[in-house]
């Protein structure tokens, strides 16, 4: 039995045309087209491109939602064992489309996916979420990319575990996998040291995590029209802590409505924080979450509106891994609700 593969390419690789034809809508073709034939050749019948989806890069960029829905519908119908997109090399919009369409297929349909592109392609931002083969920066790299992608694709279709990124040829995706090097560690260390002394290029085996910083948000010249939301890591919750937000290790976050509250009262609210003396926050929860002041500012027109929901977690530091997840989640909610400014209070 041969594994079934669906392949996604753009208008250029389908020989429809270059930039002038980038507007073409998704189209489904039988069998392999363009690079898909190179994959078939490598697979020698073990796997085969059964359908090819062609979509213009501009079309995808301008109608991402529709394009994804169409692709998903076709892929679902074809029931493939593997979905491949690209390779996109250094083509930015194509790379973006490959990465995003592959991510959609993976998350929506649970089918293994693979794409390939140049490491600096903007689509490569998703390398931790979609498996990507690093290619050259132009289509001249197809001769090397096709066998690498075909080999890795077959592995995915068979459900075999991945070897380390440098062995299987995919971009490092944050998952550490063991393998045997040719030389022992001490030898590698001495070589690396000599390269470092000579200011020659070397590759560290363990890149330090991204010390990522987020650019400061743009200033809001006129706060009198802005929707302001409150968030806190000070653990302010409704009296009785109905959601059982844990006092010492925040395992979830709270979302609470303050519609109709002109100030937080000791009768209605409290803190769930276990790390500091809760007496003062319990006596007057506005000391942690200044709803009273913001209500007044709302009336005075200093701010446009106080958002009717606030988000609360406990603890500043624990959290890091989990609080990041919580914040990602509620950031989306804030965005959807049209919040323009967030005051975060911490103890």
């Amino acid at each position, binding site marked *: 039995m041969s594994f079934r593969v669906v392949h996604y390419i753009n208008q250029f690789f389908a020989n429809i045309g270059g930039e002038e034809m980038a507007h073409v809508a998704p189209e489904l073709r039988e069998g392999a087209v363009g690079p898909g034939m190179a994959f078939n050749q490598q697979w020698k019948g073990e796997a085969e491109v059964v359908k090819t989806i062609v979509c213009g890069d501009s079309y995808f960029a301008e109608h991402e939602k529709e394009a994804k829905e169409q692709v998903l519908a076709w892929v679902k119908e074809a029931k493939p064992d593997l979905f491949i997109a690209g390779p996109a090399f250094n083509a930015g919009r194509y790379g973006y489309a490959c990465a995003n369409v592959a991510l959609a297929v993976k998350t929506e349909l649970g089918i293994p996916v693979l794409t390939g592109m140049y490491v600096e392609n903007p689509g490569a931002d998703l390398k931790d979420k979609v498996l990507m083969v690093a290619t050259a920066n132009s289509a001249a790299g197809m001769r090397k990319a096709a066998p690498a992608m075909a080999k890795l694709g077959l592995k995915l279709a068979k459900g075999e575990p991945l070897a380390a990124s440098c062995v299987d040829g995919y971009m490092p995706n944050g998952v550490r996998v063991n393998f045997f090097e040719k030389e022992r560690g001490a030898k590698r260390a001495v070589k690396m040291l000599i390269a470092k002394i000579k200011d020659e290029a070397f590759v560290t085996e363990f890149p330090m995590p991204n010390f990522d910083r987020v650019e400061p948000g743009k200033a809001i010249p006129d706060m009198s029209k802005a929707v302001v939301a409150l968030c806190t890591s000070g653990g302010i919750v409704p009296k009785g802590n109905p959601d059982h937000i844990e006092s010492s*290790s925040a395992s979830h976050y709270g979302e609470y409505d303050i519609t109709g509250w002109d100030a937080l009262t000791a009768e209605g609210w409290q803190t769930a924080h276990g*790390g500091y003396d809760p007496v003062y926050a319990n006596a007057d929860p506005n000391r942690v979450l200044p709803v009273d002041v913001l209500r007044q500012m709302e009336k005075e027109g200093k701010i446009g509106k106080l958002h009717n929901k606030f988000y609360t977690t406990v603890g500043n530091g624990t959290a890091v*891994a989990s609080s990041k997840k919580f914040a990602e989640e509620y950031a989306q909610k804030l965005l959807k609700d049209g919040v323009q400014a967030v005051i975060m209070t911490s103890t």
Partner: protein
Amino acid sequence: MKPGHNYRIVTNNPLVRDILGQWYEIDYSDITYREVLVKVRDLIYAGHTLFTHPLSGSVKPNETPYKSILVSKVPGTYDMDGTELMSNAIIAFDKFKQLERHYADYHLRDFQLIDYSLLCSALDVDAVAGLSKRNPS
């Protein structure tokens, strides 16, 4: 032996409580390893200084139930390095798979002993001599 005037030992290890409690202020409670980390982190937030590394010992955090950490008795200047160490320790703890393990009493005693001796090394206490002075409580 380091003088105890500015030390507080946060621990869930009864052996540490019974022996080192004779000379040092002990904050003992019957809580989990992770809860000890969180408790100390919150003390550091509140201004206490961290004196020992929270991940002392090569016994991995998902193996031993015991953890003892030395902090200052009184809060003072905010200890930023300590905060970072505690946060990283909690992250490190969370990455270990929580294993289902069945401990016999002698395992627990050994784990207590190791944790105790790690802390002794920080306090310049002769761990062996200390054992013979165990408070019978």
